[in-house]
């Protein structure tokens, strides 16, 4: 006979209000196998846990049911308490009589009866629990960080400074991401490059950071602690070891009219180029679409001019495999395309704003380049069409964001702040200029943020119109902006010289593909999903894979950096252990009865089941079988459900346990 203890919690009034605890305790004491049944006002409190520990010892309990809240909330708490008293933690189960019972019922009589049933079922389950030991998996104490923007940089430096090696992969020729292209940052107006480039140099020089730029993650195999990552190093046509970054090559390159990606198309670059002077690594790359030599075999002046002979026209892509134990995804964002062309059928453009049709209608990142000292105009505000200084600029917020009609319901969060900043920067540079802002709401939640917006309005005279713009047209060289000011209840028409659209933030291109590669979930907009919105914000549902920055949701620099440090902290905690310990409640295959149909292999969402062979003692082949990789299995039970020959079972949730629970309910 089992010696099970049942501990019922009142949860203050949360359970006791609708469940008759006394009647329940009496009834449970009569259940076969129950040695002791007690109740307490707050089971999770110190005295509550102490009573559990004491009873385990006094009554020599061999199983425990805590009837309280959801196991998500406190299973770990009570398992720890049991372990402290010498009971194997996997002999503890919870009966959820709060979310599943007291919170959803009104009738005390019926609720009490239901709570008794729930507990009886848990008792039946725990009678069949096995003592389990956590699984130990060796790990590679080396992290992969994908994306070299401010979040990836912060995460890489933190992990490297904690003493672990980091492999940082960046798609573009330089690290720095979007932040490297910003002018000045809110709410302090410090220069973006001045605060970022020293961190970029640190990354470039860090002995424990291996940097792959102009490279992409192409494939991931393995599991937490033991990932094998394929990285494609795209042909750069420049020998990184020989090159000194002197700049002779791009000075002589005759291919000039290539739109600069770094300048968001507001300026030009050569065919051989570094994206910006402070690039890390400060080594150029050849754009093969623009290079005259690579296109038609003529030119090659850069190679002639290059003293260290670093130009390699025969360079090829190279695929490298790196072994890592943890992965941080920091792939950031891109701006929503305001034009007709959309990559997603759910999204539509804003034809009414004429972006792409009128040269002087630009987006927020393009304005950043105009306002940046390192930008195409050296920081002078000049409109793209004719280079004239605009005397009136209209800024429109929420272009795409919070607009179900165009496919995005979410708030892009940073626009209210950067629109205020843009107005401010503009007024600081063009004193007699007028800055008009159309907005829905001003969302300035953040330290010193509201004050910043007030400064734009009160000190710098930005004119805020609460309302939307319906159409922008061009008349006699002016952009006619027609909108509404809902506070005065009047239509407003402004003849502007330039219009800046604060377009929505979207996850960067390829983020969904990468997420699929790493078994990370994405939401309907393609943002990567965290494991728990409050308590596990940087973890994902894939063990050993973490997220930070704008790939998760729109966020500003301080938030991205904080999240990056949090993700790095999680990796460092993982690496601080000798080995990886994992929950032992995972699936296992009965290899004798497995028919090797591999339905489970196809069904497993974590690719944790592999095809294997059963061999005899001499190594002779006996049969094929499916086999669970304990390092990857998340214990979801999908394989158990699909197995036609009932050869897979889940420890802690065995079929026997589930059926006995159901049977106990039927009795």
């Amino acid at each position: 006979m089992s010696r099970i203890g049942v501990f019922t919690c009142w949860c203050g009034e949360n359970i006791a209000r609708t469940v008759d605890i006394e009647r329940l305790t009496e009834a449970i004491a009569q259940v076969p196998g129950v040695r002791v049944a007690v109740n307490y006002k707050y089971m999770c409190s110190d005295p509550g846990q102490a009573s559990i520990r004491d009873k385990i010892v006094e009554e020599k309990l061999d199983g425990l049911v805590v009837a309280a809240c959801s196991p998500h909330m406190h299973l770990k708490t009570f398992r720890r308490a049991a372990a402290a008293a010498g009971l194997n933690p996997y002999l503890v189960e919870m009966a959820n009589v709060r979310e599943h019972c007291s919170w959803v019922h009104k009738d005390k009589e019926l609720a009490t009866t239901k709570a008794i049933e729930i507990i009886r079922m848990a008792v039946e389950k725990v009678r069949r629990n096995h003592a389990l030991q956590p699984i130990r998996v060796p790990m590679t104490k080396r992290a992969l960080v994908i994306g070299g923007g401010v979040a990836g940089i912060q995460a890489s430096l933190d992990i490297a400074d904690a003493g672990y090696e980091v492999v940082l992969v960046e798609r573009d020729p330089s690290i720095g991401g979007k932040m490297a292209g910003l002018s000045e940052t809110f709410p302090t107006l410090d220069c973006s490059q001045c605060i970022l480039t020293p961190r970029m140099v640190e990354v470039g020089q860090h002995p424990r950071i291996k940097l792959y730029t102009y490279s992409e993650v192409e494939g991931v195999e393995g599991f937490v602690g033991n990932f094998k990552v394929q990285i494609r190093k795209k042909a750069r046509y420049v020998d990184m070891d020989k090159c000194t970054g002197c700049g002779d090559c791009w000075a002589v390159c005759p291919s000039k009219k290539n739109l600069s990606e770094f300048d968001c198309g507001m300026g030009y670059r050569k065919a051989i180029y570094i994206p910006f002077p402070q690039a890390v690594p400060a080594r150029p790359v050849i754009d093969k679409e623009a290079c005259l030599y690579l296109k038609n075999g003529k030119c090659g002046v850069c190679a002639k001019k290059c003293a260290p002979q670093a130009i390699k026209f025969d360079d090829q892509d190279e695929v490298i495999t790196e072994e890592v134990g943890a992965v941080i995804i920091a792939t950031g964002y891109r701006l929503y395309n305001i034009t007709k062309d959309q990559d997603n059928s759910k999204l539509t453009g804003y034809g009414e704003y004429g972006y792409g049709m009128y040269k002087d209608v630009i987006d927020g990142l393009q304005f950043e380049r105009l306002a940046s000292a390192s930008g195409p105009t050296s920081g002078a505000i000049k409109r793209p069409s004719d280079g004239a200084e605009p005397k009136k600029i209209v800024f429109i917020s929420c272009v795409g964001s919070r607009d179900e009609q165009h496919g995005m319901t979410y708030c892009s969060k940073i626009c209210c702040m950067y629109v205020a900043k843009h107005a401010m920067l503009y007024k600081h540079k063009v004193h007699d200029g007028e800055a008009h802002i159309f907005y829905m709401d001003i969302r300035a939640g953040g330290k010193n943020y509201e004050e910043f917006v007030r400064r734009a309005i009160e000190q710098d005279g930005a004119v805020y119109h609460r309302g939307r713009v319906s159409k922008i047209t061009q008349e006699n060289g002016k952009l006619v902006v027609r909108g509404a000011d809902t506070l005065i209840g009047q239509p407003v028409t402004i003849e502007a010289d330039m219009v800046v659209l604060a377009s929505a933030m979207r996850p960067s291109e390829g983020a969904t593909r990468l997420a699929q590669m790493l078994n990370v979930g994405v939401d309907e907009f393609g943002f990567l999903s965290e494991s728990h919105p409050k308590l596990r914000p940087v973890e994902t549902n894939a063990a050993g894979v973490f997220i930070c920055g704008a790939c998760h949701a729109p966020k500003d620099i301080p938030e991205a950096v904080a999240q990056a440090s949090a993700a790095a902290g999680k990796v460092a905690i993982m690496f601080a252990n000798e080995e990886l310990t994992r929950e032992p409640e995972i699936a296992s295959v009965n290899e004798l009865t497995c028919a090797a149909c591999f339905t489970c292999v196809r069904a497993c969402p974590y690719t944790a089941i592999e095809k294997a062979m059963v061999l005899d003692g001499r190594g002779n082949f006996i049969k094929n079988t499916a086999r669970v990789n304990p390092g990857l299995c998340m214990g979801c039970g999908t394989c158990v459900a699909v197995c036609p020959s009932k050869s897979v079972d889940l420890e802690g949730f065995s079929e026997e346990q589930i059926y006995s629970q159901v049977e106990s309910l039927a009795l």
Partner: protein
Amino acid sequence: MQIGYYPGCALHGSSNDYEMSVRATLTALGVQLKELDDWICCGATAAHSINKKLSMALPARNLAIAERDGYSEMLAPCPMCSMELLKTIKELSDSPSLRREIAEVIELPIKGKTQVVNIIQVLQMVGVERIREAVKRPLSEFRPACYYGCLLTRPAKILKFDDPEQPDSMEEIVEALGAKPVQWNYKTECCGAGMTMANEDTVISLSHKILSNAEAHGANCVVVACPMCHVNLDMKQRDIERRQGARHRLMVYYISDLIGLALGLGEHELGIDRHFVSAPLAAVKE
């Protein structure tokens, strides 16, 4: 090619010049129009402002007949009609219970299988290249402002036709005729539509703005695909002159007129001589 044809009240009444033009041009392009048997009013603005169920039942009856008679496509040249018909298809396909209810009201089964198309979509089905090849008299003198008005492209989610704010399908067609469409700003602004009865001042001021903008961008004529737009922009020019003191004298053509002219059809055949403004292009050029 043979397709169903739903004229709607306008094309059999005030805008029978549009019907003449559509019939003549499509016949010349080898499209046979089969007029819908026993068709009724689509309900237009009146029905949906009074009774939702009525506004569904009227178009539904027309759709059910089209379906019964096996039309896979049906042309509704008036954008108000085509919008009401498409809106009904959408609502009925979204709600099976509403569909059953309406079927009971109209005493006809309805599945929503007939596709409703506007005149531009029919021209696209013919093919811009085929139209270009059929041109006998290139319209090189024409600098039209293509005017879509409010309903041709909206509501975008239901119509799924062209960009609602920056459409360009008419431009593509008139370019194929040798004309040089102008870039202008009032392509999708409202002309005042049915306000022409209740509040003529609004129509006069809106239509005046549209015509002025077309002229300011170098247009020597306007092209429309909506009977209501035609009424306001063509017929009201005299009132605009009287009240606003602005003399436009801008020819307003249906898209089918321009194609007919380019194919060599006569103004009388196309009903162009029934328009209110009949200044020949040469006179406009002065």
